């Protein structure tokens, strides 16, 4: 039986032997993984903006979901969806793939 977890990618950021990246240093391009720690987490591709999203293991809020393409979406695109910007041929990656390939 198909599970959405089969779609998940994998990310490892290992700072166990490094000063790491503190929460203060975290910025675009840097995920906060402090020295002496490691982040190992699933990832998914937002079907709307095609960004790879690292799933925060400590998150308790629900994630955005597009019923049109049956796929998780990132928080930014989730907001757009709530504002009635639905996935369409121009935005949905999965629809694009069917069209172009």
């Amino acid at each position, binding site marked *: 039986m198909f599970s959405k977890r089969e779609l998940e990618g994998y990310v490892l950021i*290992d700072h166990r032997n*490094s*000063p790491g*990246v503190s929460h203060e240093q975290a910025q*675009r391009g840097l995920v906060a993984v402090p020295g002496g720690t490691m982040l190992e987490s699933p990832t998914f591709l937002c079907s709307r903006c095609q960004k790879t999203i690292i799933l925060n293991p400590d998150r308790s809020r629900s994630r955005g979901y597009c019923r049109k393409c049956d796929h998780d979406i990132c928080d930014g695109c989730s907001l757009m969806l709530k504002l009635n910007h639905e996935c369409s041929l121009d935005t949905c990656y999965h629809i694009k793939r069917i069209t*172009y390939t």
Partner: protein
Amino acid sequence: MARRITIQKGITPAAVADTTAFTSGQAFAFWRGGSATQYTRFWEISLSGLAASTSSPTPMVFADDSTISVGALTFAAGGGDSYMDPFTAALAAPLNVGNIAATTFPQRDTANHKMQCGLNAFGGVYFWRGNRAEECPALYGTAVSLGDMSLSSFTGGTPGLISGHVIYETS
């Protein structure tokens, strides 16, 4: 299907802002579509810190480029691109890969940052792998913000020496 690998044996990426032209050897690599309809998926990105002694937060970003590179792409010393399987049939129009552009360097798009690949280059390791084809970031054709991608350092950190590889597959 042709799976290939781009490597860097040791590079200190330069911090470059969005929509600013790269110069020779500043980025890990650029990838540009080999034809107007070519489709390439990126399956794996692995970066390992090689900095010898100083904390070096290195904000690496894998992103679309809003200015397409022009001319042949080649690598500065230490970089390379090769097939993974020696029996892979050569592509009629292989992807253009390198971190030096013969004519015009690409510029990273402001909006389309696909993946945060940062690490502390002093002892840090970053590794990402896609599990399904439809979950991999992709490059299509040769148009702006679709057909040219780069792995490079964003501003705000203190980039250090790293090595790594990127595995991609052209279909």
